[in-house]
């Protein structure tokens, strides 16, 4: 539905264009069009995109658009003259004395109002922008042995093609591991909506989403499962993550099984390793 806003905005602009052409009204002025385009872009960025863009991103885009429109006007002397003509008239011409006076008063009042309401906002702690998938270490110490993540592979993955029945056994074992351990946070449907999810910050990962395990190699997932929050780098806020270090609870086989299960259940494939030669 939201995407329909894009053609709608352009349709409105087109209507303006038709009116301005047929009746030769004053808003054929480039300044009008610059403002119209600016608003149109803002409406599109704000409303047409799902999920909604963060306000910082919108501000960034609008800054670029402002600069582009500024260049559009200033690139041509004639156009620039045309564009600023009404503004200058407004500031200089005696017949606009009253509205100009009003504008001069209203703007400082608005500024003061903004300061006032800015001081009334609800007190909310600043939010920590954590890195969700930080760079993994090159090797980890797992139960006394060194595992080099770049070489680590799921030892049961090959069964998927070689022996589907055995593969299924590992998936089923992983299912049991999942529902006896992971379900409380990551939820029955693996969407991160477990019964404890609302009390945790950061919220548990949603495995069904394309942005989590679908983007990761199984070795990375093994690292995250085995080592949990304590092994996260600072940019990921290890102090708040409730992900346990599952090496305390599960065997190596159980961890690989549960990894098979979460890919199998969600229908995602692990990201393939880039071969080095």
């Amino acid at each position, binding site marked *: 539905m939201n995407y329909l806003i894009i053609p709608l905005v352009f349709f409105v602009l087109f209507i303006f264009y038709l009116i301005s052409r047929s009746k030769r009204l004053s808003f054929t002025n480039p300044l009008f069009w610059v403002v119209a385009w600016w608003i149109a872009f803002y409406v599109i960025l704000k409303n047409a995109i799902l999920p909604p863009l963060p306000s910082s991103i919108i501000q960034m885009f609008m800054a670029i658009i402002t600069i582009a429109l500024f260049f559009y006007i200033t690139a041509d002397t004639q156009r620039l003259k045309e564009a600023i003509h009404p503004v200058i008239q407004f500031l200089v011409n005696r017949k606009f004395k009253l509205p100009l006076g009003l504008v001069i008063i209203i703007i400082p009042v608005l500024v003061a109002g903004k300061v006032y309401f800015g001081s009334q906002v609800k007190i909310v702690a600043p939010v920590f922008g954590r890195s969700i998938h930080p760079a993994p270490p090159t090797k980890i110490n797992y139960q006394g042995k060194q595992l080099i993540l770049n070489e680590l592979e799921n030892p049961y993955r090959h069964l998927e093609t070689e022996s589907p029945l055995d593969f299924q056994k590992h998936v089923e074992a992983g299912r049991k591991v999942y*529902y006896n351990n992971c379900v409380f946070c990551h939820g029955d449907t693996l969407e991160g909506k477990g019964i404890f999810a609302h*009390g945790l910050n950061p919220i548990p990962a949603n495995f069904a989403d394309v942005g989590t395990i679908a983007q990761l190699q199984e070795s990375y997932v093994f690292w995250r499962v085995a080592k949990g929050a304590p092994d996260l780098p600072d940019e990921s806020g290890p102090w708040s993550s409730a992900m346990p270090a599952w090496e305390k609870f599960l065997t190596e086989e159980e961890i690989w099984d549960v990894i098979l299960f979460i890919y199998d259940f969600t229908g995602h494939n692990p990201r393939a390793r880039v071969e080095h030669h």
Partner: protein
Amino acid sequence: MQFSKKSRSLQGSFLLIIIGVFTICNLYSAEVNLGTEVEQASGKKLYVNYCAHCHGIDGDGKGSASLYFHPKPRDFTSGKYKLRSTESGELPTDDDIKQVIKKGMPYSGMPAFPGFTEEEYQNLTYYLKTFNEDFTDPDFVVDPLVFSKAPPYSEESALKGKELYSLNECNGCHGDSGRGSGVSAPTLEDGFGETKYHIRPADLTKRWTFRRGATREDMYRAFTTGLNGTPMPSYKDSITPEDRWHLVNYIYSLSEKDEPNYSTTIIAEYTEKEIDISQGKSLFENSEAALFPLVGQVIEPGREFFPSANAIEVRSIYNQETIAFLLTWNDMKADTKGSNAPDILVDKFHLDNPKNKQKTLVVEERDKRYSDAVALQVPSKMTSGFKKPYFLFGDKKNSVNVTFLDLANKNEVKQYTGYGYDRLTSVDNHVLAFSNYEDGEWSVIFKYNRNLDGEEGVSFIEESFIPLSFYVWDGFNNEHGIASSITAWYSLYLKASVKKSPIVPMLTYGLLALLLELIIVFLIRKKFSAT
């Protein structure tokens, strides 16, 4: 041809019987609807993928994950369904079953599965019905009761409901204030299978936790149909529909919203006065409550999968030297026997020891060992940026200060320095505490020195965000050591003691804007006034 009168009437009655039998069969065949084998088979596929790990491959409620849940997953072979639109003791309709799958049961292990197609819900329902033979018996198939929309809410009605609440002895289980702390609450058992489990009366002050839902219609259905397999009876025959709506309106008035109003920041209000904690809760009347969700500690060995408390409410006030926190949470029963501490080794009653899995959470022996307790945690010192100690009792590099009160020993506040859940050391402290249990609610006050010179850990400085988190232990639920309920890190903010007037910055920025305008107008006029 002629028929005798007799034969005619015989013929007539025969016809009537045939019609009668036909209609009855027709009626029943319309109601006993078990689906085709193909539909059941496709329902089974869904069941195996989404349900069997808790409800068991045979529908007996004994899936491998059932050990971890409380309340227990439903045993479908019993035919006892809590949420129905039918009379007490009867089977549910297909729609009743589908509704539960779709919406789940909040604050229990039953999640919502909103993403299935209508056909999938139906097939899964067909399959669930195969677990109990009564579904195939036309005698047991019943029409749902008819429910109307809720009449408008009014305070008079809620007040009438309040009278009916005690008249019908709802308080016996749900407690005088509805917090689920009635005198018989600790002895209640479910009735789904041979093994009886303790069952908690609903906390009526949190309607978002109601298994059926938070609307007034949902509550009315609960009163009318009862909850099969639980001690909650049907009041269809003993309370008139009008009175049931009064009761509904009373229960509705006990919670503010349909959703909990969870917060992230505690705002501490400044007071000129001396803080005398023996005054109790009334000290905090002017400070805003912050509600935080409590969840089970399932991170370190000694896990608590289903803690009793689901939220803790916190208020704070401070003066020149001291700061006080009021912590309140609902608890079915004050457990003041036994003892508790965060560094008790978690014993065999907990689930990490596989030998004892079957014994856990059985009603007997759960009492008297561990007392209720609460703790407030802050970092030992403020760290730069967003960095904090690990939220569960700190980590090796950054420690936390945990102020702990065992409610069996109310006068002795303990303080621990935590470098991890297994590295807690008891330290001296100057924290004062006050505690009170009343009508299903614990209230505990901790009073700290604001420590502005930074000698004893964190300084409670005005206008800064200080991380803090909480732990609650319910003795009745065998919570002890690190088997407790926990919160994430939240923030404390001490609202400035001297309220700053916005007038000065308003004037400054307003005048600055005016000046800028005048300069622009002046410059442009100077340049263009000739044209």
